């Protein structure tokens, strides 16, 4: 792997980790105006997938969407300001943590109805196919194991398959839908097996190992760009925190389970691998960490100092044009 790509993967994962930790700290200080859903633990997924995408590719995301935003290149200052409800936020403080979007970066928006963004990514791929730009612009639908219980996933996978659309369905199986364990709610062991029902390839990858995710996603994105249609990827992963900031996962998980996953932390695996094969050194890793640690302090400062939206903003942006 090229050095720049390697660094980018680490930067993205570390940036997501630090953003989530910082965002949670700020939430507990009362700086977030609502609920927040941390994705720490799951960083390898967004990083390994989005490493293959450009601003012309589109992603749909979920209520646990900060990682997808960061991996798609969104500005952490504007993201933090959005969570603080400030006018400088990515959506002018009108969307909040669960609705961060940046259309200039190919980010169709985090979506707080479970599964609801999946057909949007299919629609973005339909646009590409309609305009003959599949090679340039694919759609990626990120969703969790919880969304596999939603009917719209079935509809979306079927449509993508019959129309051979350039879509990658990425199921981040973090093993819990809110407080419901996956083995209770999902009828099969590997969610990727469901791909067979839509005659598309289905593959399960280690969602804690960014190199594994990177490889699997690369194949799927290439397939889509070549016009060979959709792929379902399942990433086995784990969220370190509860469903939302105030949810204590100890109420439904054992400490042993947490420890088992944390032993396989994506940053730890990455560092061990790159040091072992000499592709990065500790010094360059530390340099990246220091830069991002500073970036987080600056993001909080930016959000803190930014003004609240004007009350008139309540009424704007409902329509492009409603009444004269």
């Amino acid at each position, binding site marked *: 792997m090229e050095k720049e790509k390697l660094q980018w993967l680490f930067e993205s994962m570390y940036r997501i980790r630090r953003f989530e930790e910082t965002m949670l700290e700020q939430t507990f200080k009362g700086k977030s105006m609502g609920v927040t859903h941390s994705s720490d633990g799951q960083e390898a997924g967004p990083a390994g997938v989005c490493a293959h995408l450009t601003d012309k590719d589109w992603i749909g995301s979920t209520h646990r969407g900060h990682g997808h935003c960061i991996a798609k290149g969104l500005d952490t200052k504007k993201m933090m300001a959005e969570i603080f409800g400030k006018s400088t936020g990515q*959506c002018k403080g*009108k969307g909040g943590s669960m609705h961060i979007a940046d259309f200039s970066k190919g980010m*169709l928006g985090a979506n707080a109805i479970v599964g609801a963004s999946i057909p*949007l990514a299919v*629609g973005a791929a*339909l646009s590409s196919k309609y305009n003959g730009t599949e090679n340039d612009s694919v759609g990626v639908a990120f969703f969790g194991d919880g969304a596999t219980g939603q009917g719209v996933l079935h509809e979306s996978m079927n449509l993508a398959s019959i129309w051979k659309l350039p879509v990658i369905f990425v199921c981040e199986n973090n093993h819990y839908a809110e407080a419901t364990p996956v083995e209770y709610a999902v009828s099969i062991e590997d969610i990727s097996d469901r791909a067979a029902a839509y005659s598309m390839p289905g593959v399960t990858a280690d969602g804690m190992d960014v190199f594994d995710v990177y490889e699997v996603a690369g194949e799927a994105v290439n397939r889509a760009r070549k016009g060979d249609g959709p792929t379902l990827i399942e990433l086995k992963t784990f969220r370190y925190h509860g469903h939302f900031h105030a949810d204590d996962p100890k109420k439904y998980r054992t400490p042993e389970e947490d420890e088992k996953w944390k032993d396989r932390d994506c940053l730890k695996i990455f560092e061990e691998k790159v040091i072992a094969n000499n592709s990065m050194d500790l010094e360059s890793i530390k340099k990246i960490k220091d830069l991002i640690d500073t970036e987080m302090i600056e993001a909080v400062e930016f959000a803190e100092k930014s003004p609240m939206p004007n009350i008139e903003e309540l009424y704007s942006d*409902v*329509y*492009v044009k*409603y009444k004269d």
Partner: protein
Amino acid sequence: MTFDYSQTFRGSSGLPNTDNIPGSEMRYRDAFNLTLRQELDRDPSVFVMGEDIAGGAGRFEKDGEVSYEEKDGFKPLDAWGGPFAATKGLIQDFGTDRIKDTPISEAGVLGAAIGAALTGTRPVVDLMYFDFVTVAYDQLLSNAAKSRYMFGGQTKVPLTMFARSGAGTGHAAQHSESFYSMLVHIPGLKVVVPSDPLSVKGLLSASIRDDDPVFLVNDKKLINLNGFVPDQEVVFELGKGRYLKRGSDVTLIGMAYTSEICRKVAEKLEESGVSCEVVDMLSLSPLDEDIILESVSKTNKVVIVDEDTPMCSMASEISSIIADKGFDYLDAPIKKVNSPHTPVPYNRDLEFSFMPSEERVIKAVKEIVEY
């Protein structure tokens, strides 16, 4: 000579003059089909999706012969031409990319259309029966209507949806809804209700060209209604009602097919010396409050005719606007003629008792005309 359809709008004095205007009499359904064709010709980013909008998807035909494979001289099969033939002939002229038959997947298809609208195209989605909106309601409410607002105005959703509404054809409880208010209630969505061939032309063009999501409701009872349609382009301004008749004693307010009821009632009552003014809303969101108040300020009496069930209906909303902003104009109670608070029954006698009828409107007028 060009046809000035704005003559019927608020502040105007009469009906549009169609003398010497190039055009023809045609059915509502033909006006719909022709307008869709015009819009597809006009803008290559417009495409249409829906279940059986052609029919026999993936197959081909030539002079009535069906083929499972593409053969010389064969064209894509157009077995149905869409529900009520709304899209007849389009697939053979515009091809399968622009006239896209879909599986029965309302939520997935509408969601995909929203995703397509967010990324630079202008989809038109046929949801077949109005009742089927509820299957896709989450996509409509949470994505189509909210994306612009919750993302801080950085995007737009230029999407048009249409479906067939209304009782009166024996389609029973799950294929006969008129729940306009379930859509009008949604901020971020526009809702229009044409009432004749001219207005379906003007409103469909306007909906497709609009940058916001618009739902156009086709009342089944209007589909074979005849009327004059000019050849020229007609693009109504969304959010304006029109007068179908001017009068002085009572205002009758209709929407979609109930406008046609109001027009007929006004004609009948004219003979018995009651002068009714007929306001056809055309658009329910935005709602033309000014035309309502303009008319009621003159007649001082009003009957609102709405096929939707009565609780939280358009008739309720219009009543509340008049009670709030036109209280001083009123010389009699506001009268609502709705369907009752029941599902739509199948039996024809029950079904015709369910819908607002000319008789029920006349009864309401008589209750207030001498008030």
